[in-house]
């Protein structure tokens, strides 16, 4: 079943006199349960692509279907609702609210969803437990290690049962051991919970955890290949 579908997607920025084609005719299909890595040098358009896929930005041209819905001309609030229900973000810089406990950070998406306080608490506790963070619910981000912070972020991404996680350089700020831990967690989520994962990275090692690698250059898809399994 198809989850994400783009047809001839373009995104044009006007910078003074010149126009930049951040996305230039990108057509891509991602099925439910896929684990996709997007690679490419900076300025290749991979971040713009993620922003459009993540409903943070709207394309200039072309079509984007998320779970069968056309995301072309949607209002700010409609896009916010889609981000809330359909998409879980994991960022390089974790992007947790400072001076706010892990639990409350995970509760955040449910806060904008009209969940009762009790349900919020229960689901956030469960999500943190699933990330192996029981006992750290009331820690603030600055009391947690980088790996732990990223696991809080993943718990937040999953807590509203989004079908897809968009991870933008999730291991960029982590040491090798934490990076591997996080990637193994992501692989496990993809395999066991059938969560679709789209990962942006420029590290070959990290991309190797995925099962399909799409390479961007100058706003276009230049290659789209499955990963050869090691075993």
């Amino acid at each position, binding site marked *: 079943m198809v989850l994400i579908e783009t047809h001839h997607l373009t995104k044009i920025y006007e910078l003074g006199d010149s126009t930049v084609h951040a996305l230039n005719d990108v057509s891509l299909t991602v099925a439910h349960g896929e684990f996709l890595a997007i690679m490419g040098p900076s300025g290749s358009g991979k971040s713009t692509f993620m*922003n459009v896929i*993540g409903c943070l930005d709207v394309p200039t041209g072309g079509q984007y279907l998320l779970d069968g819905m056309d995301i072309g001309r949607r209002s700010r609030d409609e896009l*916010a609702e889609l981000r809330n229900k359909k998409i879980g973000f994991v960022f390089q810089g974790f992007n947790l609210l400072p001076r706010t406990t892990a639990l409350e950070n995970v509760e955040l998406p449910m*806060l904008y969803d009209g969940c009762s306080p009790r349900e919020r608490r229960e689901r956030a506790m469960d999500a943190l437990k699933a990330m192996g963070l029981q006992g750290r619910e009331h820690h603030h981000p600055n009391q947690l290690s980088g790996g732990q912070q990223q696991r809080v972020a993943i718990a937040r991404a999953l807590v509203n049962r989004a079908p897809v996680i968009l991870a933008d350089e999730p291991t960029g700020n982590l040491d090798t051991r934490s990076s591997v831990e996080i990637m193994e967690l992501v692989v496990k989520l993809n395999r066991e919970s059938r969560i679709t994962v789209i990962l942006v990275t420029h590290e070959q090692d990290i991309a190797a955890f995925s099962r399909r690698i799409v390479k961007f250059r100058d706003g276009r898809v230049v290659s789209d290949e499955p990963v050869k399994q090691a075993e």
Partner: protein
Amino acid sequence: MIGIPSTFRISLRALRVNKMRSALTMLGIIIGVGAVITMLAVGTGASERISAQMASIGSNLLIVVPGSSTSGGIRMGSGTLSTLTQDDAEAIARECPAVSDVAPMYNGTAQVVYGNQNWSTGIIGTTPGILPVRDWSLASGRVFTDQDVRNATKVCLLGQTVVDNLFGNADPVGQVVRIKKVPFTVIGVLEKKGQTDRGQDQDDTIFVPLTTAQKKLFGAPFAGLVRSITVKAKSADELEAAEGQITELLRQRHRIGPRQDLDFTVRNLTQMMQAREQSTQVMGLLLAAIASVSLLVGGIGIMNIMLVSVTERTREIGIRMSVGAKTWDIRLQFIIEALTLSLIGGVVGIILGISGSKIVTLLAGWATIVSPLSVLLAFGFSGLVGLFFGFYPAYKASMLNPIDALHYE
């Protein structure tokens, strides 16, 4: 949509993070609200005091005084003519339907002696009508009668200040005092009345029968001459009718033609006092208006801090947007934050304003009254200030681009 209680918790937490800054921002509102409440209290207190004085002088009063005399082309000022008589006063009482009581007066100042004490005070020769006219009553003893007035009896009523100075704690009723060396029997003591609006002690007075004052104390140029006639109208509505009737009656009695100048003046005391009360109220409102400027400045302080706060928390706004916060979720968060600042400031300001009024009363001795309405008004106004000045920063926050906000350093 996110609920108000959750939003309120988020706002409180944000305000706690920057305690010093929040407190300083509130200070603007605190001072504004405090100043408005204190100024309104001062204004209300002053006009209440005037109304109380108005009541103490007596209500619905008209005073008839003789006109000015002209001597060799030089006009002598109001009250210098000897044109009003006791008969005029009796005619007013008899023939003006809008008048309830009349008190003609012939007054002067004299030395009063009792035992080894003496005291200089104002002596008012008048008729029994003086008490209803001035809304005054006796603390002890009895009033002199019309009979006393006819016979020029040497009896007197003492004001409290005179009693205090001559008798101390002793009971003066039945005792004999000497006014200008003439012995008078004290038949009554007037109730304490306090000061007039001009600070004159109304209790420093002695009432004697009109004729006694004319004949035995101040030697009137002719029998029946009075210096003024105080008239009480039946009600406030009939004040103007009474004024008209008195003017018409005296014009006839004094044979003044329609084109001639009147040889007397009718003054409406109540109207003068009301005008004073009104001007005091206007003054109070003016003070409050000036004070509310500081509330406005406090509001600008809130807006300033909220704008800084929005900029500082751009990344937080981006995070909230990325997990699904809608336009109004963000807007409400910052509006409630501003509202919380202004309302807490409002409550503290009300406390400050009430204590401020007390301090003004203590230090300056002015009567102040904090009315519930002014408290409600100040509180509501501080809320409005929060809403008004919180809206623009909140609007700005809600319109941020989520991508830019997320990558804001």
